[in-house]
């Protein structure tokens, strides 16, 4: 570094790399536009909630009570009655071809039994071949039946006249903090930003470095007066800028198209994004150093980033739902921490005081990955 030529060489090298990327208009356009298109597409398309539940009702003998219960399901807004059958046997073929999601099986003589105080039994059958939606659909159906039961109890109490014991209610006033409507897009955009950043930083760096390796141009660079870390820096700097541009466009899309709330500090968010991009870049360098071809580097990058960042980061499935060993694994996935930071800043308005731990974890990851990357890179000098 003391030699005056070094700094200039580095500058020239960084400029060369920049020009390299800027000149390739096609790649540049893809890199800038595709992530934006994805944020918009997925922001609109992905919902984790279940809205249109197809209900089959089994009533051997329709009466007032069965009609009332059916009307409750229809009035709920989430359910749509698609079939009515006299017996449960008819359900099997309907479920088999995926024609209904939930079936409500009502007994014969429901109204008269209720009036007489005879215990009755209802059945809720859910197509649980998808357990995630199955659980949710069952919960919604349960809620309708519970409300119906509570009203029956109230009616019974009223009919019994004053002085009769009334049932106790514990009313739950629930507030969903930070995302009152459970809007999927609010939760999804931070995850998408994490995915896009990983894509641009880790994958692109891995590919671009291993390309030079494959072509043998890296050898030329290595015999130049540039140090390994300078070569890495030069390779990485343009992608850092690109990643930054992607964050900004994704945020603008989130704000302008989806009206995702933005409660915290923009500066903190941009700083955290830069830190996260750096982690991705270091990972990319490490992968390129460890593999021998572009193909292998890319497969490795794809497999260590794409599915884990989708599944183990809390982007779609909450971390708390993971089995314990996977919760431990999720700790080494940078996206897991970054998503907490982005959601914290955007949805909760959290500041440095709340998020310093997550930022520190990313910082440590950066140092470790960088050290590993530079170490893995060096032997190639020979």
């Amino acid at each position, binding site marked *: 570094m003391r030699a005056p030529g070094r700094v200039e060489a580095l500058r020239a090298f960084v400029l060369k790399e920049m020009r390299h990327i800027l000149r390739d208009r096609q790649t540049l356009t*893809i*890199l800038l536009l595709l992530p934006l298109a*994805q944020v918009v*597409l997925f922001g609109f*398309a992905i919902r*984790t*909630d279940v*809205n*249109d539940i197809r209900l089959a009702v089994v009533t051997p003998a329709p009466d007032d009570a069965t009609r009332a219960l059916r009307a409750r399901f229809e009035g709920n807004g989430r359910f749509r009655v698609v079939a009515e059958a006299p017996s449960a046997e008819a359900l099997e073929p309907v479920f*088999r071809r995926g024609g209904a999601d939930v079936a409500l099986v009502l007994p014969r003589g429901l109204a008269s039994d209720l009036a007489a*105080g005879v215990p*009755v*039994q*209802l*059945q809720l*059958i*859910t*197509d*649980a*071949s998808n*357990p*995630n939606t*199955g*659980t*949710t659909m069952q*919960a919604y159906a349960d809620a309708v039946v519970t409300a119906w039961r509570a009203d*029956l109890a109230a009616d019974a109490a009223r009919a019994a006249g004053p*002085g*009769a*014991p009334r049932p*106790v209610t*514990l009313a*739950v*006033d629930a507030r*969903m*903090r*930070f995302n*009152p409507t*459970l809007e999927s897009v609010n*939760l999804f955009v931070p995850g998408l930003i994490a*995915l896009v950043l990983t894509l641009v930083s880790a*994958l692109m760096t891995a590919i671009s470095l291993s*390309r030079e390796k494959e072509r043998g141009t890296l050898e030329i660079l290595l015999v130049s007066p540039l140090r390994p870390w300078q070569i890495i820096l030069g390779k990485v700097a343009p992608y850092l800028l690109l990643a930054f541009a992607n964050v900004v466009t994704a945020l603008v899309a989130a704000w302008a198209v989806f009206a995702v709330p933005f409660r915290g500090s923009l500066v903190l968010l941009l700083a955290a994004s830069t830190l996260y991009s750096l982690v991705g870049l270091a990972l990319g360098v490490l992968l390129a150093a460890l593999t021998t071809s*572009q*193909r*292998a580097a890319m*497969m*490795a990058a794809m*497999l260590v980033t794409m599915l*884990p960042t*989708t*599944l183990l980061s809390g982007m779609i*499935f*909450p*971390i*708390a*739902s993971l089995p314990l060993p*996977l919760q431990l694994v999720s700790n080494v996935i940078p996206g897991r921490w970054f998503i907490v930071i982005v959601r914290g800043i955007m*949805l909760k308005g*959290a500041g440095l005081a709340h998020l310093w731990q997550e930022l520190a974890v990313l910082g440590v990851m950066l140092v470790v990955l960088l050290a590993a990357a530079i170490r893995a890179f060096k032997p190639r000098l020979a």
Partner: protein
Amino acid sequence: MRALKYLLRKEFLQIFRDPALVRMLFVIPVVQLLVLSNAATFEVKVARLYVVDQDRTTLSRGVIDRLVASGRFVRGGGSASVALGDDALMRRDVDLMVVLPAGLERDVVRERRGHVQVQLNAEDGAAAGVTLGYLREILARHAADLTVELAPATALAASRAERPPVRGQPAVEVRRRGWYNAELDYRHYMVPGILVQLLTIVGTLLTAMNIVREKEAGTLDQLNVTPVTRPVFIAAKLLPLWIIALVVLGVGLAVGRLAFGVPIEGSILLIYLGAAIYLVAALGIGLWVSAVTETQQQAMFVNFSVLMIYLLMSGLFTPVSAMPEWAQWIARANPMMHFISLMRGVMLRGAGLADVARELAVLTVSSALVLTVAVRQYHKTAE
């Protein structure tokens, strides 16, 4: 067809010469299957609870004990201050805060109605909804018990009403059953889907990279000037990966069976028939990507984006029925969605040829379509 034979030999040699690649082809999908199949659930086992008990009575303590006794909640802290609880929510130390306001016991005894405030951290969305569901259910059961507990006292207080105590709530019992996956084991559901994802990633990616690599290296030009015809060239590029992907599928099915006990209720031949057709579409997309891009970097980026659409629009992780109408159409055009549905049908429900005829038809059509477009896009001439 001698040319095809030689080209195939060359392709296989090139793949198996790269030990890192072979390792990745077989080891990583297995590891991913093992790890990721465990990940895809919204089920919340234990939620951490912050208790703000301003009532400090037997009844308010009873409510909390009931919640904790359910095993769904653990106490993650408590004080008399809502502000402190708020801070704990903000720091993610707890998942929800329950506020039992002063006078709760009095209200329940006198009015038969008490209010409990609950604030959930909805940052994780789905998880908060599920947690709230559990909480409501537990409190409803507690309220029913309280009704019975308090009944004699009320009957007395209500100036010795002559009626027998509590004929109470109408006796309605709800039985819940989940069909096709009675234990709600999400892994059975996820394994077929994740298997499809891995097949697609391996197939699409390697096809695209394979051809673009030859473009970059300049060897494609050399091939182009040989008398090898376009169909032979494309067949030589696709067949090896098609075969490898089918082998990977077999390995994946075995792992799913051994590690997770995922059943294969239906015919394994049917699964292979579906896979053989579906892979043509998956590899065709790789071929198309390699035709429209010039460098491996571009190919990879385009591929990655295509795969993200595949992944997120397939209904594997999020229900298709919740998407807006136009997005559902995109999802329906996604061959992966149909193949996943076929795999699940055959593996979990024991669906036969007749049950999955529609999926097979859609897969055949989309494979033919994708392959035609890809082959047309690919020119034997240099630009």
